[in-house]
């Protein structure tokens, strides 16, 4: 695939000098888009896993703590007798404090607030709970008790994330197409510049692939150079974004991290780009030479 030597003075071409810079920019954007997709994948997986197997039952605050406890026990019994529910437990006041702390601060006292009582319900994996019927029964036992199964919220959220991912992948495809277009343009210019030399090679019996190989190798070298540079700038950017997101960490926001395989995917992006550039240059030259006798 690689030319051992070049008969065409492609390395002296002024018109191809901008190619590595353009490719560097493309790879930089591609790395960000790809990393964005991976991070969103991670978020989806975390939230999906954490939320789809759970429900929360909310009981309105009663006038007296004793009545509160009685309501909780009533509801827990109903829940534990319901098929499809693995476990149910009341959220302790300490946990409530932890949840409210980011909004109300450490000084707030739970005793002073008429807080609803929350019950954390874990569903049996694969079990089918009749949420509407259960809600009716709970309402009969404790008026105004309601069930939040997160599903509506989660479905909307997932749809949003998927849309963002599709946009990121579209951006990635557009970047690929722009790279291909740039390489085609550069190669065609090269063909025009070296037309005379190409004709001589052609007439002394060079196969089309012999000529195409020289352009393909050149495009690969330039693209790899640009791609590695783009990657070298993109990685610190990603790390900086990761540190920033960790610093902003709030209760519901997982840290933006990627797995080793995802880092590897990002690492091979310049090589994929170089391969794409090489094949593009090769086919551009072959198509052009096919018009010669």
């Amino acid at each position: 695939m690689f030319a051992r030597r070049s008969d065409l003075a492609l390395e002296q071409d002024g018109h191809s000098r901008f190619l590595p810079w353009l490719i560097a920019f493309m790879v930089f954007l591609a790395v960000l888009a790809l990393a964005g997709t991976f991070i969103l994948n991670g978020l989806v997986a975390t939230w999906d896993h954490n939320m789809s197997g759970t429900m929360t039952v909310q009981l309105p605050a009663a006038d007296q703590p004793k009545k509160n406890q009685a309501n909780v026990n009533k509801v827990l019994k109903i829940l534990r007798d319901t098929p499809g529910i693995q476990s149910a437990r009341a959220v302790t006041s300490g946990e409530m404090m932890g949840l409210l702390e980011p909004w109300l601060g450490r000084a707030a006292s739970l005793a002073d607030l008429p807080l609803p009582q929350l019950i954390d319900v874990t569903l049996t994996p694969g079990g089918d709970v009749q949420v509407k019927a259960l809600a009716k029964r709970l309402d009969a036992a404790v008026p105004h008790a309601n069930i939040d199964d997160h599903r509506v919220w989660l479905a909307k959220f997932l749809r949003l994330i998927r849309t963002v991912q599709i946009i990121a992948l579209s951006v990635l495809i557009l970047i690929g197409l722009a790279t291909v277009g740039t390489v085609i343009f550069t190669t065609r210019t090269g063909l025009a510049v070296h037309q005379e030399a190409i004709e001589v090679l052609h007439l002394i019996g060079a196969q089309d692939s012999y000529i195409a190989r020289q352009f393909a190798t050149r495009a690969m070298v330039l693209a790899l150079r640009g791609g590695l540079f783009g990657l070298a700038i993109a990685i610190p950017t990603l790390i900086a974004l990761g540190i920033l997101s960790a610093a902003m960490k709030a209760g519901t926001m997982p840290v933006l991290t990627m797995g080793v395989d995802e880092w590897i995917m990002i690492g091979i992006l310049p090589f994929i780009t170089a391969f794409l550039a090489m094949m593009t240059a090769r086919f551009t030259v072959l198509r052009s030479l096919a018009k010669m006798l």
Partner: protein
Amino acid sequence: MSNSDHAWVVRFENVGLRYGLGPEVLQDVSFGLSPGSFHFLLGASGAGKSSLLRLMYLALKPSRGLISLFDRDIATTPRRLLPELRRRIGVVFQDFRLLNHLSAFDNVALPLRVAGVREQEVEKNVTELLSWVGLKEHLQAKPPTLSGGQQQRVAIARAVIARPKLLLADEPTGNVDDNMALRLMHLFAQLNKLGTTIVIATHNEAMVERMGFPCLQLEDGALHISGAQDQPMEADDDGSESEEPFVLTAMPGNARYGSEGRS
């Protein structure tokens, strides 16, 4: 020309050529060149000599008629097989067409390299041939730094380095002095003796007379043949044998390149 049993290196049958919608520059050209023949191609400027050569070295397609090279009809030969045919043809272009960014050595090495010859052999044969044409001191010189005559010798060396079966030369001695012209003609004659079919387009009538080979004469786009046809000529008939050793030691005479055998 109708002897179908005969093996032809080049055969033209009623070939016509026109550029675009212009008039025909070649009309009903028919001739055949046997293996090992030597012809001069004569004609006034604009008579179509270069066009005829371009048809022969597969740079052009005829507008009509049939062209066969090495008994292959060019019109029906798949494009991917044409490079192999081209490698059997050596061409000395009128304007040399050397690659200016390559050294004299690399220019001459091109036909061997595109044929995939090992670099060791390339090195040996190219150096030898360039030394013989008097360019030993200029192996690494770029063509723009060479004189017209030196460039012409590089062009000739490039055309003959792979020991072609057919050598086509357009005014190959136009820029060299008489002595070098004669020397180069003897190189061609030696190649011819080794079996290469040769066609040389020239205006140098003295040279044509001296060498005594038959002529293809182009006049107003039509071809006339003079002299004995299809007979390989003895180059040394004019008594130039004394200079004999130069070619065969300098030419990669004993080497075989690529897959095709040499006769």
